[in-house]
């Protein structure tokens, strides 16, 4: 159950923040409001009248618009085509058969008008796939506005935006508010909530846990969100860094679309330290790590592991050289859901003794080892033969961590290691990372949660637009790091 008796009231002309952890049920709630999901019980009132919302058309008719976290735009269509889809203006032309001939000129004009009125600059004839993310989001908002909505739902709108784009978005939201529109702003970022919301409703585990005003302190809001006062600090000794293990020099990497993602990065991770990379998601962290792992082509620069060049190596060789890797997208890259826990635990070791040799595979050995790992890493599963897909997110992540830590490592790379993981598992995984550091492994931690980086890392590298802007001490004030994450110039040199 994702939603359990939620109550929410939005007043006209207000910006109402819906605050909650990942997976708290915010998006489910909004999908119900928008007619994409049907509630099992409860009712929705618009302007005081109860309303059945069976699908998006009902929602649109009732004046509700939504900007989804993953944009609902057809990449090969133009802006105007995307905006008119579903509400096409037509002129004649056998309407009984084709619905009529599209009136493109009018659609273009509408886009221009709306973008003019609310300061949403966009070219109506540009193709969506050629536009940067921030502009695509504007198209989404225009799409809703041309349908003359009174209530606009923004689902995690800032997750993919640069700080500058975020500021622009907040501007737009204010303009909309002035124009009398209500906005529901879904987020888990406290700073933005305090910056813009008129009222805040906090959701936890599918329930509303209360509402608050924007001047409520961050600590209080965080406590409401998480349910108990969070102990994010991890107890650890001071690091004793040794020789450099991972050295990256002048690395250049492109993303899937061929756009430069890493534009000349220099990095060193030493044995026995945790280097944390902080930054807004989408600033090249993913590509940087994938290049190190041999999953993505390094266009320029050098990557060395313990003094040996590893760029150009296939992934298997990198893993075998003593690199452990927790990929950021667990369900896509981390586990094979249809495979058993035991099989997933040997996903990168299946062809080495004692699990396999040559062509032969030894399932008994695999199962035996799996039972030991399950015990050691506290994986909650019915048996080692259960399919990994039946485990909770936290336990799936433990399977990955167990797999990667079950061989001698020189370097451990953890990308978003606790995303979508329950609090208990977070603590366990954090302890394991610190333990790995303490036995002398170099650890590269990538996380978009600044708190996680600050509590685990011994040094913090701030990444912005494919570059490392600065490497600072984790004790540096948050505001200063926040400024760096937004592309501000560093005040001081490497710590």
């Amino acid at each position, binding site marked *: 159950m994702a939603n359990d008796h939620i109550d929410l009231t939005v007043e006209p002309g207000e910006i109402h923040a819906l605050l909650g952890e990942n997976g708290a049920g915010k998006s489910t709630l909004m999908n119900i409001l928008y007619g994409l999901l049907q509630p099992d019980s409860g009712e929705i009132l618009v302007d005081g009248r109860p309303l059945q919302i069976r699908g998006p058309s009902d929602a649109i008719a009732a004046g509700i618009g939504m900007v989804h976290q993953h944009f*609902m735009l057809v*990449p090969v269509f133009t802006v105007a085509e995307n905006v008119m*889809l579903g509400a096409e203006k037509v002129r004649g032309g056998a309407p009984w058969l084709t*619905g009529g001939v*599209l009136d493109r000129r009018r659609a273009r004009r509408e886009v221009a008008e709306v973008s003019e009125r609310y300061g949403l600059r966009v070219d109506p004839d540009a193709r969506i796939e050629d536009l940067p993310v921030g502009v695509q989001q504007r198209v989404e908002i225009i799409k809703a506005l041309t349908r003359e909505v009174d209530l606009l739902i923004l689902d995690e709108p800032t997750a993919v935006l640069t700080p500058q784009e975020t500021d622009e978005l907040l501007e737009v939201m204010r303009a909309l508010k002035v124009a009398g529109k209500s906005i529901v702003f879904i987020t888990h970022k406290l700073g933005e909530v305090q910056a813009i919301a008129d009222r805040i409703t906090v959701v936890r585990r599918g329930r509303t846990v209360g509402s608050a005003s924007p001047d409520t302190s961050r600590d209080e809001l965080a406590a409401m969100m998480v349910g108990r006062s969070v102990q994010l600090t991890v107890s650890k000794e001071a690091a004793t860094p040794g020789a450099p293990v991972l050295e990256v020099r002048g690395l250049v990497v492109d993303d899937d679309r061929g756009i430069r993602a890493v534009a000349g990065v220099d990095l060193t991770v030493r044995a026995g330290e945790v280097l944390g990379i902080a930054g807004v998601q989408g600033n090249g962290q993913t590509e940087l790590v994938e290049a190190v792992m041999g999953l993505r082509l390094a266009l320029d620069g050098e990557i060395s592991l313990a003094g040996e060049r590893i760029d150009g190596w296939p992934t298997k060789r990198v893993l075998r050289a003593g690199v452990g890797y927790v990929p950021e997208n667990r369900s896509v890259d981390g586990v094979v859901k249809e495979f058993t826990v035991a099989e997933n635990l040997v996903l990168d070791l299946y062809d080495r003794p004692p699990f396999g040799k040559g062509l032969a595979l030894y399932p008994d050995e695999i199962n035996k080892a799996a039972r030991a790992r399950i015990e050691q890493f506290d994986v909650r599963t019915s048996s080692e033969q259960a399919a990994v897909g039946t485990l909770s997110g936290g336990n799936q992540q433990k399977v990955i961590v167990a797999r990667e830590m079950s061989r001698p490592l020189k370097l451990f790379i953890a990308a978003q290691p606790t995303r979508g993981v329950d609090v208990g598992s977070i603590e366990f995984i954090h302890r394991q990372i610190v333990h790995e550091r303490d036995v002398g492994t170099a650890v590269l931690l990538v996380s978009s949660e600044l708190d996680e980086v600050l509590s685990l890392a011994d040094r913090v590298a701030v990444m912005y637009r494919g570059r490392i802007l600065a490497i600072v001490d984790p004790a540096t004030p948050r505001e200063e790091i926040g400024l760096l994450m937004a592309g501000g110039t560093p005040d001081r040199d490497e710590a």
Partner: protein
Amino acid sequence: MTAVSTITVDEATAAVPAAGFWSRDRKVGAGLVLLGVLGAVLFGALATAQPARFTLSEDSGGAALEVGGTTGAVLFGLIAALAGGALLTGRAHRWFAYLLGAGVVGFVLSFLCWQVSAAPAGQNFMPLVNVVRGTFLLALPLIFGALAGVLCERSGVVNVAIEGQLLMGAFSGALVGTMSGSPWIGLVAAAAGGALISLLLAVFAIRYLVDQVVMGVVLNLLALGLTGFLYERLMQQDTKAYNQPPHFPVWRIPLLSDLPVLGPALFTGTIFLFLAIALVVVIQLGLFRTRWGLRTRAVGEHPQAADTLGVRVLGLRYRNVLLAGAIAGIGGASYTLVIYTFTKNMIGGKGFIALAALIFGRWSPVGALLAALFFGFADQLATYLGAIDSVIPSEFLAMLPYLATIFAVAGLVGRVRAPAADGKPYIKG
């Protein structure tokens, strides 16, 4: 999975260096230069001094275009090579399509000059009317089939069952046509027959989420078995009652049918010829100019986006898939309601060439038409070459559509891109 052939397995992406010197233009250009030189040298050497005559009629008589065999083979080969050379410079990107066309046509003409001049004495001519008319006739079922593919796949349902739809259309057209004695009723029955296969495809693919390719393959076999069974049980037992379909008359469009070459080919024909051309125009305009088209394409590219805007994704898919089946069914009837009677497995793989034409034509109606004509031409050429005792085995020409499609999807001649949601069932929420 990602769209057909636009996907590159990730490792492969890493292996392909960012477009360096060997851009697509240059690769194609180099290929054309090779072909052109091959034509000029090899065909030129093999051609005889006999003139190659291309007559504007159905036989050796009448006006004709004439060129010496060797001269023609060398000349057209060089034209192909020149077109390739222009592309090879890497500065002719703007004229890519024209140069590619010129190169291919040049190569084909060079080949024809050799073949026609080397034909047995007295047969050194190619009757263009026959060739053009044959091309259109052989392309007809491909056009209908490919249009059926366009409708399905543009809305996100892979249609591998074109073969079955054509076959079912041919069968029900013949059966009902014979029983009713009216080709028109036969035509309607053919559309219904094709739509029946489509209905099964739609229900299983959309409602039960059965893999669409699997379903298509199974439906082809079902259609093959069903029509074969009823053919042997009914039609063979009593041909007169069940398998002597009435045929549509040949219509001539006044004035236009008197045009040289094109007149007898394009403006003289049965209803199927005109219907095919009309459907290409209507669907092309419909897809890109109307509300139905915009929604169809949206549903094929990003169904969830369409859904969030109130477009009924599944309804539209059902509608288009059924329409596609009806069109393919009519295409099947172009066999049984024009010349032939029904025979077992009479489509014989044309449905798959239609699929090839769809892909080769990049999922657009006009593209599919051109691809179908190209494949029809290859087919007609095979017949012609057989008639003049050519050394080129007709089997190799028959392979041409299939090989061309493999080249196309492998991205050797530009990339083709399927609708992004093609083949993916849509599940709400």
